[in-house]
């Protein structure tokens, strides 16, 4: 009886050991199995696209045929020179691409910082101007209108109405001046307008406008932005511009107004009284969008390196 019970327990354990639950496998193990079975299935479509762009697919396929994952994982036996060389080459390509991304992101960050600094200074000037306007409003609406109203009072010492009409005129002048100052305050609310020379920024190439050495994108980054998204016919760059049009940041690019505003945002035309706080807001938001898109490359590079680790 006892032997039968032991036999039953052992059978159950054996069965569970033979048919292990897939949910018990770690993410790494799952990836190893997938990579050994089908390399392209292991890479997400954007990662596969980037791997093709970087010329890494052939290297990954060669690495897979060497089947040295266990050696690499446990470090028990030295890897073959071919495997080491392949891993080094892939690592160099990935590292270089990462640094190129960093270069672009650093340049974008610099431009965002510059726009922030300008906006802050322009905001301070605007606040000072609005404060002056408020003081002027107190003088006109308060003092002048008050004098006018006072003159209309029926003073007992002045039994005639000689000052009634002048009082009304003064009161009306005060009201008109106050209305004028209020209207001027609305204009001042937009902030000062600055002028500047041609200075292309990282939006210039995105809008297909002339850029310079400092605002150049490395080839791999530019091809990534101009690659069509998997499953669509739209490139990342076109999607960015579409989104900006939908959000109202730029007029439609097929209009002259739209193309002129793009040139202003990109800094590729002389900026004569066109550097405003609203324009800097738009520029900053767009630069952040471009930065976010470029940063996606890190995810694809990570996916590629995880596959390398799995091979």
């Amino acid at each position, binding site marked *: 009886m006892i032997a039968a019970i032991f036999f039953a327990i052992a059978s159950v354990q054996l069965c569970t050991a033979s048919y292990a639950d897939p949910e018990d496998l770690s993410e790494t193990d799952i990836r190893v199995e997938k990579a050994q079975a089908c390399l392209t299935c292991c890479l997400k479509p954007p990662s596969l696209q980037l791997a093709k762009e970087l010329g890494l697919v052939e290297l990954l396929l060669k690495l897979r045929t060497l089947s040295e994952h266990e050696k690499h994982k446990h470090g028990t036996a030295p890897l073959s020179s071919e495997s080491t060389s392949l891993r080094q080459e892939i690592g160099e390509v990935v590292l270089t691409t990462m640094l190129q991304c960093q270069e672009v992101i650093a340049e974008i960050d610099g431009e965002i910082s*510059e726009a922030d600094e*300008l906006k802050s*200074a*322009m905001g301070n*000037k605007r606040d000072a101007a609005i404060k002056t306007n408020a003081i*002027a409003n107190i*003088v*006109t609406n308060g*003092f*002048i209108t008050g*004098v*006018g109203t006072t*003159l209309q009072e029926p003073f007992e010492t002045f*039994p*005639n*109405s*000689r*000052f009634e*009409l*002048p*009082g009304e*005129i*003064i009161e009306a*002048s*005060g009201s008109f*001046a106050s209305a004028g100052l209020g209207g001027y305050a609305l204009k001042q609310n937009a902030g*000062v307008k*600055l*002028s*500047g*020379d*041609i*200075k*292309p920024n990282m939006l210039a*190439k995105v809008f*297909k*406008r*002339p*850029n*310079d*050495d*400092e605002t*150049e994108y490395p080839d791999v980054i*530019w091809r990534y932005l101009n690659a069509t998204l998997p499953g669509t016919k739209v490139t990342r760059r076109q999607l960015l511009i579409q989104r900006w049009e939908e959000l109202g940041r730029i007029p439609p690019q097929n209009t*002259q107004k739209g*193309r002129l505003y793009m*040139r202003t945002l990109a800094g*590729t*035309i*002389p900026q004569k009284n066109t*550097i405003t706080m609203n324009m800097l807001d738009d520029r900053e938001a767009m630069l952040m969008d471009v930065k976010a898109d470029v940063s996606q490359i890190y995810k694809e590079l990570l996916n590629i390196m995880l596959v390398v680790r799995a091979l």
Partner: protein
Amino acid sequence: MHKLALTVMSLLTLQSLWSPAMSEGTPLVPNEDKMQSGILNGRATIKIVGPLHLSEGIVVMKDNEISVLSDATDSIREAELSGQLIHAHAVGDRPSRIIKGLAIFTGGYSIKALDGHGVNESIAVTDGSKYLGHIIDSSTNLLRIKTASGVIVVPIRNIAEISSPRAFEFSITANDEQPSASDSVASAQNRIAFDPTLNSDPNNISNYLHASTVHKQLSENHLKKRVLTTGLVVTGAAACIAVPFGCALFTQRPNR
């Protein structure tokens, strides 16, 4: 038949790019190094013009007028650079014929990007004279330069050399192999390159100038303007009170 059509199209495309000046009457002799100037028409792709990088730049040439576009969909009116071609001539034999000459830019959205800081432009003429100043305008036959002694008009045929950040020596490599039947693609197989006639200072301070110009505007005090505005406001307020009050004082009291 297909090959024959392609060959004819290639010849037509190259011919459309280059045609000798009708008034001169002498046909182009491909073996000579020094060619007579002709009239250029056509399109070519461009990547760099001076400090400007163009990812999908197109150069459009029509009757020796040149326009540099950022994108093929831009119109000539929205050219980044526009100007004149000077002394265009062909060098070499087919299929490796190269068209060379001078291009001087005087207009366009990005013209100011070519300007160097504090650089004097110069034009050397065939009679040995040299003019220093700033090139302001160009046409098919004439170039205008503003010198210290005034605006001087120089006939293009008399120009021996130009040294300016806006002037470039161009060379067009015409591609005779035209695999596509589409006009726009076939013509864009030609590539144009620009070499500067004036080497710019590697320590370019234009970026610093831009930043300092903007910061200067922010830190400007406009003291005179503020004093004037305050004076006007105070005067206006005083007048609003004083004028009606004064009129009331000096008018006759109404009889009741």
